[in-house]
């Protein structure tokens, strides 16, 4: 949960690891107008390496605004259908997808392993 005196500087934690052809991007913090550009840049860099599947793990995200959805919808457009998979276990990160209908194109999973199920070479 965001603290009342939270930092007002970009303070998103983003990292990537590869499991075979799949990139798993883990995000922590608040995705808003401050941090969405940073996230977009990071995801753009991962997309340049042409992952077969991109998993974005949002479980450590405690705020997700439409600026974050915009980054993910942009990634979706650059990937094959179904290749972008989002891991989300809280309503804070799931509701923005479901209320806007974006979950029709970008599937939500409860864990990274489930998001990677069926991906050849991803292990797990």
């Amino acid at each position, binding site marked *: 949960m*965001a603290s009342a005196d939270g930092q*007002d500087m970009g303070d998103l934690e983003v990292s990537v690891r590869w499991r075979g052809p799949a990139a798993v991007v883990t995000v922590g913090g608040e995705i*808003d*107008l401050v941090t969405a550009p940073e996230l977009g840049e990071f995801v753009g860099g991962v997309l340049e390496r042409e992952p077969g599947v991109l998993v974005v793990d949002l479980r450590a995200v405690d*705020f997700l605004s*439409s600026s974050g959805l*915009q980054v993910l*919808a942009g990634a979706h457009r650059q990937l094959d259908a179904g290749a972008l998979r989002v891991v989300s276990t809280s309503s804070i990160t799931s509701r923005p997808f479901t209320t*806007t209908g*974006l979950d029709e194109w970008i599937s939500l999973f409860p864990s990274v392993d489930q998001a990677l199920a069926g991906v050849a070479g991803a292990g797990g």
Partner: protein
Amino acid sequence: MDVQEDTRALSCHGIVAEPGALRALRHRLLAWALESGIPDDRAHDIVLAGYEALANVADHAYPGEPGLVDLDAVCRPGSVEVVIADHGEWRPPDDTEDDPVSVRGRGLLLVQATADRADVRTSSDGTVVTLGWQLD
């Protein structure tokens, strides 16, 4: 104005509509909502809808440089109202874009889906967005 004991209000006027200030304002709104005893889920709805309305101001109301935005929130027994006012021009989502995965306008969609009531009034003075929730 009389403020009844069971009414809690938050008033933040003249906030610069730029990302850092809007994040700080969102944090104030969340803290206020939780201190007012609003359940967590509802508090997050309020903060998301409020922030998207504010973000729309930052994005659209003031092309060029950031303008100012006012936020007023009132929590009464059984209901919450958040009013966001700017003095620029509200730009509605561009519906000429036909890509179904487009996100333009999703901010406003989030506002409407997350609030029980969302009313947008535009006049020559600017735009007032009134968001309402019923509390169980």
